[in-house]
């Protein structure tokens, strides 16, 4: 971390961006699982898509697919961010 003492400002900026990405991705995580899959499951179940009541689909299939995508998106975002702020390995 020797370079971080010289460029504290940019390091702080890097960390803020990272926390920002996490906040957005975790908001999506909570929305699909706790929102679509649990809290709003009953109104969503009134909608049927391809044989699935929508709320049920989110609870047993959709949220899991979204979780996988979220982790890979975070990986790619951080790959770019690490390079931009020159902290990559």
């Amino acid at each position: 971390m020797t370079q971080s003492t010289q460029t504290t400002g940019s390091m702080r900026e890097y960390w803020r961006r990272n926390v920002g990405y996490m906040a957005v991705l975790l908001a999506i995580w909570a929305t699909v699982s706790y929102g679509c899959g649990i809290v709003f499951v009953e109104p969503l179940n009134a909608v049927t898509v391809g044989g699935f009541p929508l709320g049920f689909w989110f609870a047993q299939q959709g949220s899991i697919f979204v979780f996988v995508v979220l982790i890979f998106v975070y990986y790619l975002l951080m790959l770019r961010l690490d390079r931009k702020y020159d902290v990559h390995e």
Partner: protein
Amino acid sequence: MTIKIWTYIMVGLTFGLYLVIAWMSRVKDTRGFYVAGGGVPPLANGMATAADWMSAASFISMAGIISFTGYTGAVYLMGWTGGYVLLALLLAPYLRKFGKFTVPDFVGDRYYSDTARVVALICAIFVSLTYVAGQMRGVGIVFSRFLEVDVNTGVIIGMVIVFVYAGLGGMKGITWTQVAQYLVLIVAFLIPAAAISRMVTGSFIPQLGFGSSILSGPDAGRHLLETLDQIGQDLGFSAYTSAFGPGNKSMLDVLCMTLALMVGTAGLPHVIIRFYTVPSVRAARLSAGYALLFIAILYTTAPAVAAFARYNMVGTVNEAPYAQAPTWFKNWERTGLIAWMDKNGDGVIQYRAGAPFAGKPQSSGQIGAHGQVLLANAPAPGANELYVDPDIMVLANPEIAALPAWVIALVAAGGLAAALSTASGLLLVIASSVSHDLYYRVINRGASERARLTLGRVMIGVAVCVAGYFGINPPGFVAQVVALAFGLGASSFFPILVLGIFWKRATREGAICGMIAGIGFTMFYIVQTKFLGMAPWFMGVSPEGIGAVGMVLNFAVTVVVSALTPAPPQAVQDMVETVRFPRGAGAAVDH
């Protein structure tokens, strides 16, 4: 060839494979023993993590539980996958950058306190022991059902196999056998799933068949889920896809249970340590993605299998005269996993909501008028005559779908792979907690590399024996304590790990008070409701979900106490700063 011969061949081949891998990946130093030398590629670590995570419960029991609870089964599906998002975003990259061997290592260093380290290692041992006993029992049961050996012999065979590869290769041996075990278990799960999906809906892909129309029979052309909803209501159950309502858990309870399982997953030490084994921070992030991808393959298939199996079971068994019941029904009746009590004496099997009789089926040793096994149980009121153990939904699946004998044998090998892979990961946590965290870090800092490696191997042996003891003499509460394992993971580690990384101001006093408050409350509530028979008094939250409340309590106590105590030393704050930036994550070191 008979099913039994095929099972010997499949189990023999897979065990042989694990032993060969164990010999090839034997290690000579503690770095290899605890973190596989830190050189595991992300894809392999993803597979190993998936096998480590998916236990006998995921492989054998989960689809069956969903089959009988419908929508509510989503608690397990979301709860046991959503935690990986938390791991990937909040923990794995930073713990990898920190780069030590164990979870108590991080807690002890970050909170500059051996008290915190010891509290953490006690939690780690307790959580892991609880879990591993269930796995050993699972190994014994698979052996006894498929190979007809005694359960105890099965447990001992399992113990010897795990001891050989975990003792020889430590984390390195475990990692590479887990990669093989993942492949065995996923193939064993997918082949019967694809076959049954094709049988019911005509689609080879279970995730698509789940939403398709039924291919043939009286319900041909109707959507599977719509049909299941109606069948359920006709027989007095609630609709399969409907949430909450009478007979189901409340919304608050579903929320709490899902949260407790997610956070518990992210706080389980045997999962967290897998991220110490990869070469870089980037690899830690990527391998969390692979891990969840590999887990999701099973976890999105399981609810589909649950729906197919339920449709099949009700269709073939309900209102069928016993004399015409399918062969698989009679095969599994002998194991006590399925039972029929002809309460109205008409010789026809009636399946309705409610328990058929009190307790688990107890054979009276006699055969009834229709050839059924007679039971000694007291009949329960209500019209239901059928007892079905949830495990049957996966175990009998290949027979229901009329698949060849080798597929049935493969399911046995898959169940063993799931149980053994999880058991070995847990055993390593127990061994490292004692030999590394307690002996080396707290008792004897001058221990030689050689002595520590030997102690690590001895501890694996001790842990195997303790786990085997509980596998042979299962305490009546094994099923109940699984709730405790997740509750403890959620209410002890997760909050202080997250605060340790994201809040420099979190102090030693805060973390110790937080851990004790979180665990204390969670344990107290579980003991009250599970063992002392009290009603769940906290807003009706079931004991499985109380870890979520314990976690919030831990967060609150840690924050308040930290704010009231002096800030951590500058060196610790600098360490937190370092952990946040990926560059410079060398191999894991033991200082």
